[in-house]
């Protein structure tokens, strides 16, 4: 019950009002009567109710003619609502829209700039050809309006018109007007004109010469920058970051002119400024402790006191920038410590940055981080804990000293005792550490001793990678496990249910240990792997082993095959390839920088942009061709790599002499042809994957996991 005075007021209002009221049921019939009522107040109420129904998602398009009757009104609010309605339902009654044209044209000449804007803004949104035919005069007039508010709206309408009807837009010649708007006296108009040009450029690369326009207007942009709204600043700064300075002097000048914006309160302005500076940095001379680097550092740090979504973007971008300028932020490690209130997605990104940021030559810092990560590993969110455990091994391997690694190992073993849910992650991390110190038998003993107590590892471990690692460890240190055979047998029993990595790992382990294992373990694994699996590469591998085993001096051959040492893991942090990194640096702040997928954009956007994509195909073919070439190049690299392995690795050399060479080649051919569509879809990521493959080395890597957990590289691994 509302208070008494309000009730009295309402009563008075209701009794004075003559105009009939509209109930809130929203029945079409009632609304229709209301819309044509003789009382203006009732009509307005009815319009509001109609819009309300529209908001609720009901189809009120049948009221179109009746709503349209109310378009000629002097009430601004009512006009806005009618326009909104027309915009939403114009397509349902294209023939009736013509009735509104007259009002649009009159309104576009209204003395009130607000009405002029409203008219042109709405008119350019209506996808009805008949309306667009009449747009010329109002658009041209508003483009040259005295009022900057109207002009800044009109320049955007050009882009809208271009999207709806490119031919008409070119025919009318409004693009020239748009270009001229870059020289407008008002900074807001300049910014919107720039934004509109960029939009048009994205739709059709040939419509405007964007890059030369940017080039000739750099000084205007720099001038306008200090005098416009925060959003206009973002537009102008993003445009400036597209421009490459002629020489170091100009680059320095641009940097000097924008640096002040690192102190803008809007984080998006700050990030756009950072982008401009990063773009121009390579051109100027600077040292790692110069002023500009300090300013960049503190600007990046300041992005950590923004809303979490913004922090997320910032963290992803910091990851990119750090790879180019690793000396940034080294003193700011603590800023990235996890806050209790951070959302999970921020926490995970922060751990990533922490491990990348820590200076491996600074023992104190590493130790601090180690205790911090240990705390994280004892938290309760499973994803967070799992990432923290991974980070522990990454930190250990980054610091690279055995005493430190064994400290990490102790922590992991301690964690392992605590909880069942984290066994997978600990197992993977422990095996990584062991692969980092392959000579250290003490550590291996420690780890195996713990694993040895597990009576049923097949159930304790959940993920494919963890099982794969566990089985690999069985093969590497068979003497440290007391009841090796039952353990292996459990895995053999479940062979069919396991995924590819575990299957391969099991196959290799059993072949490796075949002389020590009793019974028919070898026979049954080989049979399972050749008959019961759908994984082609597991089958091929099993076939290869089988043939080797049936050759005359099989013992020696197998021994040589199995005794080859795995390369040491010296880095578990993945890196971008130089080309990808350069592209990502150009795309800071964008959505593609969040996904680390540069340039993938054009192909994706195409699907939804309407009827205006013609110019893009050529460019797309070009980029596809480029990807193809890059792909080939990468294959070459891979094969070269294997050649080198052949030289160093006698066992593979022997393989070459045997008939399996053909199989191997088949495998490679198969692999690369399978890759092609993937690379086309997402060239960059595959390049990254291939590179990480190079890092992780050689065929045998299969038995351990690939740390990057990168989908594509995983696929590739599976393929080999």
């Amino acid at each position: 019950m509302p208070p008494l005075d309000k009730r009295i007021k309402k009563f008075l209002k209701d009794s004075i009002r003559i105009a009939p009221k509209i109930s809130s049921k929203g029945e079409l019939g009632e609304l229709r009567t209301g819309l044509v009522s003789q009382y203006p107040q009732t009509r307005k109420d009815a319009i509001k109710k109609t819009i309300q129904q529209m908001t609720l998602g009901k189809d009120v398009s049948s009221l179109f003619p009746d709503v349209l009757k109310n378009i000629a009104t002097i009430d601004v609010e009512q006009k806005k609502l009618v326009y909104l309605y027309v915009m939403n339902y114009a397509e349902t009654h294209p023939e009736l829209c013509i009735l509104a044209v007259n009002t649009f044209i009159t309104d576009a000449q209204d003395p009130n700039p607000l009405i002029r804007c409203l008219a042109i803004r709405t008119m350019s949104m209506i996808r009805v050809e008949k309306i667009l035919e009449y747009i010329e005069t109002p658009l041209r007039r508003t483009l040259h309006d005295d009022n900057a508010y109207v002009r800044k709206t009109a320049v955007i309408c050009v882009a809208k018109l271009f999207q709806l009807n490119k031919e008409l837009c070119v025919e009318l010649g409004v693009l020239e007007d748009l270009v001229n708007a870059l020289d407008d006296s008002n900074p807001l108009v300049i910014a919107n004109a720039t934004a509109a040009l960029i939009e048009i450029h994205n739709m059709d690369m040939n419509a405007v010469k964007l890059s030369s326009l940017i080039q000739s207007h750099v000084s205007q942009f720099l001038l306008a920058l200090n005098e416009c709204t925060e959003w206009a600043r973002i537009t102008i700064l993003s445009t400036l970051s597209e421009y490459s300075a002629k020489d170091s002097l100009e680059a320095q000048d641009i940097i000097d002119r924008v640096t002040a914006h690192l102190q803008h309160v809007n984080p998006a302005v700050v990030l756009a400024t950072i982008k401009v500076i990063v773009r121009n940095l390579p051109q100027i001379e600077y040292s790692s402790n110069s002023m500009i680097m300090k300013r960049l550092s503190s600007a990046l740090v300041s992005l950590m006191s923004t809303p979490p979504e913004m922090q997320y973007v910032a963290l992803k971008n910091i990851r990119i920038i750090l790879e180019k300028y690793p000396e940034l932020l080294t003193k700011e490690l603590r800023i990235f410590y996890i806050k209790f209130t951070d959302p999970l997605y921020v926490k995970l990104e922060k751990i990533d940055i922490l491990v990348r940021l820590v200076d491996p030559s600074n023992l104190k810092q590493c130790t601090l981080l180690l205790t911090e990560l240990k705390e994280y590993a004892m938290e309760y969110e499973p994803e967070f804990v799992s990432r923290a455990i991974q980070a522990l091994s990454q930190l250990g391997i980054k610091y690279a000293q055995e005493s430190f690694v064994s400290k990490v190992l102790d922590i992991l073993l301690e964690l392992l005792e605590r909880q069942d849910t984290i066994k997978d992650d600990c197992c993977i991390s422990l095996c990584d550490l062991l692969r980092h110190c392959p000579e250290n038998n003490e550590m291996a003993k420690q780890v195996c001793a713990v694993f040895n107590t597990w009576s049923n590892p097949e159930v304790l471990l959940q993920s494919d990678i963890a099982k794969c690692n566990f089985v690999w460890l069985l093969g590497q240190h068979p003497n440290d496990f007391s009841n090796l055979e039952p353990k292996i047998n459990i895995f053999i029993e479940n062979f069919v249910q396991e995924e590819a990595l575990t299957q391969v790992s099991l196959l290799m382990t059993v072949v490796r240990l075949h002389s020590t294992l009793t019974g028919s373990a070898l026979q049954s694994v080989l049979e399972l792997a050749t008959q019961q699996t759908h994984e082609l590469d597991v089958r091929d591998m099993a076939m290869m082993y089988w043939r080797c085993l049936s050759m005359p001096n099989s013992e020696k051959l197998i021994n040589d095959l199995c005794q080859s040492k795995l390369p040491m893991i010296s880095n578990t942090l993945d890196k971008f390839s130089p080309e990808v990194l350069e592209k990502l640096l150009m795309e800071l702040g964008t959505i593609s920088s969040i996904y680390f997928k540069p340039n993938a954009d054009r192909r994706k956007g195409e699907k939804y942009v309407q009827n205006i994509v013609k110019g893009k195909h050529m460019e797309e073919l070009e980029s596809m061709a480029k990807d193809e070439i890059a792909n080939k190049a990468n294959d070459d690299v891979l094969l070269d790599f294997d050649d080198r392995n052949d030289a160093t690795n006698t066992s593979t050399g022997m393989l070459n002499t045997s008939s399996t060479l053909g199989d191997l080649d088949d495998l490679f051919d198969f692999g690369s042809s399978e890759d092609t569509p993937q690379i086309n879809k997402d060239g960059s990521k595959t390049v990254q994957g291939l590179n990480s493959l190079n890092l992780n080395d050689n065929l045998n890597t299969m038995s351990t996991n690939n740390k990057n957990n990168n989908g594509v590289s995983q696929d590739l691994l599976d393929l080999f």
Partner: protein
Amino acid sequence: MASAVYFCDHNGKPLLSRRYRDDIPLSAIDKFPILLSDLEEQSNLIPPCLNHNGLEYLFIQHNDLYVVAIVTSLSANAAAIFTFLHKLVEVLSDYLKTVEEESIRDNFVIIYELLDEVMDYGIPQITETKMLKQYITQKSFKLVKSAKKKRNATRPPVALTNSVSWRPEGITHKKNEAFLDIVESINMLMTQKGQVLRSEIIGDVKVNSKLSGMPDLKLGINDKGIFSKYLDDDTNIPSASATTSDNNTETDKKPSITSSSATNKKKVNIELEDLKFHQCVRLSKFENEKIITFIPPDGKFDLMNYRLSTTIKPLIWCDVNVQVHSNSRIEIHCKAKAQIKRKSTATNVEILIPVPDDADTPTFKYSHGSLKYVPEKSAILWKIRSFPGGKEYSMSAELGLPSISNNEDGNRTIPKSNAEILKGPVQIKFQIPYFTTSGIQVRYLKINEPKLQYKSYPWVRYITQSGDDYTIRLT
């Protein structure tokens, strides 16, 4: 950039939307709740940017709402979109007070109007509430007497597109005053033993300007924030309450303050890091001459903020001791100490100590404040209204635990750590008026209105409070 903006309820169902471009299908938003629930089923990890079928769903959460922007191009500026969404919510909060499901439903007319103005074709336009309120007024639905008058009333202000886009001309106030609040929030992470793992000061200079005409303001602070490690040092307090400065004598005042603070022992000069300014501050002027000058918007706004990351002594310290007698009860002893100078008083101190989810039958003993069990947060909350400097209060609590534990693993003897039983750290909230931790001071605020030439009075107030992350980690 953005193709459409949606306000969705807590399930992700759209309440109100505005399409800015025609390049996405009408049904695009219907996928959003499905995407959300699919993700929720898989894990706790829900990034603020989802991808489906070539569309990007960027969203923020506010109260019971999701505010979503759908974008088609990967080259769209994500930072700008997220910032815009937050700004949009801020603008709506100025209009509707609280932005939530109900207020969105009730005020759809004004929201449509605003959405029309803040963004055009997906490009953010004007988000300055003070200016928007000039021509988008909530009371506009009252019918007007004369049509002509109405038309004049709702013109967009001329200043909108000027370089001073945040202040209309012709503002008059009877009394010309400017209020400055300097608010410092302390974020700190400590271990149970009292070691400070991370600490930072986030400072905010809030202005409430009630000045006529187009005043030009000049703010002087001791920008090398003089920072003392010895907080008990009584001489280093910015003069409390109001500081009135004369327009003409501020240059004379400058040296006197510097000399007085220089007499303090053991001062470490720490420059304020990453200063951030409201858009009204002339950034290039600050860049070149280190002077803060601006034409303020009318009313309240945040003039600047800064951050100082430096090790400071905990202002409110809690010695928490938790003993878990598994399967029977949990004992908590807590000693809180206000480690601030004796003249100051911390107010509204709240100490939130986590307890296990399944704890029950609490019994408390305490000397000051009030203590209660908050089952929905799985914590006990100790409130102390006023906590004078140097005082030490204590409390103890005992809660029962269920005698049967859920996970029956008999052979495991390793007890769970506190971190696993108590989900989360001890959180502390407090306010300390008339005090800044960094030692920042306003030297002068010079107000100059070229046409009106009035006399005006700046008022300055200082306050230190806990930030959103002032916590003690339990291990």
